[in-house]
């Protein structure tokens, strides 16, 4: 195919390559108005412009050459890059737990292709063993790639497929499950699996990385080891998220799937348990419980999958001056459930009332959560709250907005009976609603205060 030898080039750059008989992977000398350049022509990123040709020069660096400066191109050689990932057989030992890793598309481990800069995902047990050999000291690992999607493209279909696959694997006798996942919506999937896997006998651990695994400083390998340990050895038979505790390479947290949230766009320690304390601390060879009680591991392998989800459910983030037509649109478009993330204790402004009233009358389930994330909805404190209650908006206590969205989709997926939906929503599952908020559940310290500075200096972030 002609595309192959001009990989990624388009427009003027493509024309220059064609006219001057040059091709990708050709070692060339380019005579330009800016002088001579020598190197191997690399494929070009599709999103980059059509004004430059990329060369990898002898010292390993990449440079771009302007096509309108090129006088001639001489091919001196040709070497197409082809790569293979060597596999080493993942060692099996009888005394280690059996753990299954499901892949969803996030890169857990990878190798670099230095010629193209491409990141080649490592996924099979053999590949993973090559990249993170320590895993063999923790468990016997098998893998299964379910999808190849980015985190933001994970949705109800994937939740359901995952739940069914996990339940099947558990029934077959696995000792623990790991799910490799992009981090953006890791907490949505964690909530969904919590609801869709009833009465878990073994740990189900979701894990990702905040720094991609092609970097020497990546958190991926350590996260994976933590997850493998938690899945194979921990006593906690719940859906959990295992990610860095501090930003340092130190320990990970096991967060309950219904109380966890990504709280920073890029920090390694982005995942935090909200409104409670994390389940446990995890290191490469141990788990230290922090939270009691928890659902303990069982010997049996019975589990029920409840793969239901109604897609016509939404999450509305309220802001001052939100217009009622926002709600009307949703109703007109057939939405069956709306979770509102309200201000303060769970409020919206008066102009929205008629729209909410119309929605409730049309049988739309409307629930209130708080955009403060920490704390409970409390609709009796102010008149607005009481008005809302009168309109039929149901407060969800301290359930996190994203968790409420997932739970409402799951509930409406099972029944259209709003009474039953209400019962499902208000019956706590795995602490999605807690009866009390511990005093150490809300901890956002502010820097600059001497005692906080002292704490940071002493205990490392």
């Amino acid at each position, binding site marked *: 195919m002609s595309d192959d030898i001009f990989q990624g080039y388009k427009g003027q750059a493509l024309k220059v390559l064609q006219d001057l008989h040059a091709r990708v992977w050709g070692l060339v000398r380019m005579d330009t108005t800016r002088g001579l350049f020598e190197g191997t022509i690399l494929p070009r990123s599709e999103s980059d412009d059509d004004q430059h040709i990329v060369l990898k020069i002898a010292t390993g660096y990449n*440079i771009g050459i302007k096509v309108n400066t090129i006088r001639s191109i001489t091919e001196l050689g040709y070497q197409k890059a082809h790569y293979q990932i060597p596999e080493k057989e993942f060692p099996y030992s009888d005394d280690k737990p059996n753990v299954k890793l499901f892949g969803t598309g996030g890169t857990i481990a990878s190798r*670099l292709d230095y010629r193209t800069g491409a990141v080649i995902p490592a996924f099979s047990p053999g590949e993973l063993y090559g990249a993170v050999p320590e895993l063999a000291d923790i468990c016997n690992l098998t893998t299964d790639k379910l999808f190849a999607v980015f985190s933001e493209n994970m949705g109800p279909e994937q939740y359901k497929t995952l739940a069914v696959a996990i339940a099947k694997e558990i029934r077959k006798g696995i000792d623990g499950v790991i799910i490799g996942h992009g981090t953006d919506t890791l907490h949505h999937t964690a909530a969904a699996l919590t609801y869709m896997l009833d009465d878990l006998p073994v740990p189900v651990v979701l894990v990702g990385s905040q720094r991609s695994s092609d970097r020497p400083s990546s958190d991926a390998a350590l996260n994976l080891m933590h997850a493998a340990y938690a899945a194979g050895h921990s006593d906690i038979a719940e859906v959990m998220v295992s990610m860095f505790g501090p930003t340092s390479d130190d320990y990970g947290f096991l967060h309950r799937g219904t109380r966890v949230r990504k709280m*920073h766009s890029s920090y390694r320690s982005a995942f935090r348990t909200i409104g409670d304390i994390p389940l446990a601390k995890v290191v490469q060879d141990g788990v230290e419980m922090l939270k009691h009680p928890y659902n303990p591991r069982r010997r049996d392998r019975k589990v029920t999958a409840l793969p239901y989800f109604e897609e016509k459910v939404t999450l509305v983030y309220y802001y001052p001056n939100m217009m009622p037509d926002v709600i009307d649109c949703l109703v007109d478009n057939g939405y069956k459930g709306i979770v509102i993330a309200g201000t303060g204790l769970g409020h919206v402004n008066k102009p929205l009332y008629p729209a909410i009233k119309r929605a409730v009358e049309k049988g739309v389930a409307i629930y209130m959560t708080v955009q403060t994330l920490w704390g409970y909805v409390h609709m009796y404190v102010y008149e607005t709250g009481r008005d809302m209650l009168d309109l039929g908006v149901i407060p969800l206590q301290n359930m996190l907005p994203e968790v409420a969205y997932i739970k409402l989709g799951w509930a409406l997926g099972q029944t259209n009976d709003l009474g039953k939906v209400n019962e499902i929503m208000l019956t706590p599952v795995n602490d999605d609603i807690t009866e009390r908020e511990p005093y150490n559940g809300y901890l956002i310290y502010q820097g600059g205060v001497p005692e906080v500075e002292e704490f940071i200096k002493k205990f490392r972030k």
Partner: protein
Amino acid sequence: MFLMKNEKIDPRQNYQTSREAVGYVPRAKATQEDYDRVGFKSGIEVHQQLKTRKKLFCNCPAGRYNRKGEYDAEIIRHMRPTLSELGEYDGTALMEFKTRKQIVYQIRNETACTYDIDDTPPFPLNRKALEIALELSLLCRLNIVGEVHIIRKQYLDGSIPTGFQRTAILGVEGVIQLKNKTVRIIQLSLEEDSCREVSDVGHVRVYQTDRLGIPLIETVTYPDFSHPDEVQEGAQYIRFLNRSTGKVLVGIGAGREDVNVSCRGGDRVEIKGVSHNRWIPELTHNEVFRQWSLLRIRDLLKKTVQDPRGWRISSKSLDAEEYGLIQPEVAKARESGYGCSALRLPGFRGMLSHFTQPGQMFADELSGRLKVIACIDKPNMIHSEELDPVLPPEFWDRIRNELQADEEDALVLLWGPEEDISTALETVEERCQLAFEGVPRESRKSFSDGTTVFERVLPGPNRMYPDTDSVPISLDYDAIEEIRSRLPLDVHEMYARMTEWGIPEDTYPYILRNNLFPLLTRIIEELEVDPVFAGTLFGHTLKHVEGRHPRSPDFRYEVIYDLMEHLKKEGIEPALAREMIEERYQHPQIDIESSLAAIKFKKVAEAEILEKIPVLCTIAEESGISEDSGARTRWMMGQLRPSARGNISLPELHRHVKEYNSQARAHSNREGAGQ
């Protein structure tokens, strides 16, 4: 020279004879022939920090430093090697991983942000830095790239928290013109500076993050240098060129050199982070002879060891107490949790005490690697060929016996934390195996005495990959031409101009180092000051004053221009400036008139001074001071100097006095003749 099978070696004598056999000569005595004999070859990588307000990829202030131990938080990381496309770890990568270092970053909030510690993706590249780097690329006559690609260059030593340095090439294939040589430039890159190391003890290496991320350029030359002094000249030249823009940082650590050296048959060894150019000649001199020595060791080993591929050490762990290791040099071996092993190096007699560098021998190569790779702090070993034996011969006889070694073998005793011993044994074995090949590719740390020590294995070329967090930056014609239009003069042109002006050459380094050429030119051209005077005012007087007095924080070199301008305006002799430099240097904020008063200058009209000449002449005559050998003129000058100083140029006054005296003499002669 050849020893019998069971003959013991005399290490001291062996060290001397091996040194002679290698043909080592002290640098002071070395000639170009000596360097040609060993095939001296060297190239440099000159690092220079740029003067920008902010760092290269974030908005932290650039060029601000914290004191050691001044930090707000610490972060721990470990660097994990990533596999290359061939599924293999790079040599350095593997070594760094073996060391299992815990890297601690000490962060000060004012100088580092979450980008620095790799918790936030990069912000767009600092455009000011790009502009300065382009200016320098043009000065090196490089072919400028059409598009800048930011790439990641892996570093696993922890010196950069991401594990890679973001760097980009701006130009390739340039030249610089030295006095007697044209040196080719391979490339110039713009990159982020790394952390400063605070300490490196055992398995913990501590860095501070203030320097991290400062824009830095790296100018890389071809290995075109063939004499140590030439390397220094090249390094100086590039440093002057960088400074000629006035847009780079100066001071300790702002410019650093990596020097690559090889001998004929040797391999590239990189001497890292040389912060003083004056160290370069000694370092490169010693390095080329170290390599030459390693080649001789290789040749000797080939004669004694039949099967290099099958060469292995054998070892035995010892109980330090049982073996009576009580000497202070081996005290650490008895610490709790420490292991101690004796090693037999078959066929290595005479190698451990073989000369490598002044004051060092092959055994030091082993010890250096033990420190870095096995993380065992020195002292970490002793051996059977110590110049000043620590352990009695009976000890070595016993070990020789137990390891079934004969006199052809060498013995090593090493110790360290129990868990590091196996790495230590591997490390010694590996280094000895490399001895059969000659010169290992490595980077070495420099010391001020001109010697070096192992730092790490040199990385392979496969450690660069595109930075997926950045987009390429197009460099357009107009932008480049705009920068080209305001380039400073080339350094070699500055040389030529100063030579033309007759300024003595010994002033050039000072003038160029401090980028004073533009100011000097202005003083000469705008203020019409004599070039030789102006050049030496900087290169002699100011340099002298700088070396002896504390510099006022308010002092800028422009202070000198202001001074010269004032003198011109007031009609005061420029020569007076020489006396005022010391005062202006220490108190530039004081007005110039007060400075003049401070040196007791009094304004006197020229006519007033000249009027005194006849009177003084008469006095001299009356006092019997004859003009025969110019004594009268000298005496009169002495009388006039205090008031003349600054008011009339002394050569001119001298001319007046002399003229008057010779006229007076002629007059008196005539009168005498008429009598």
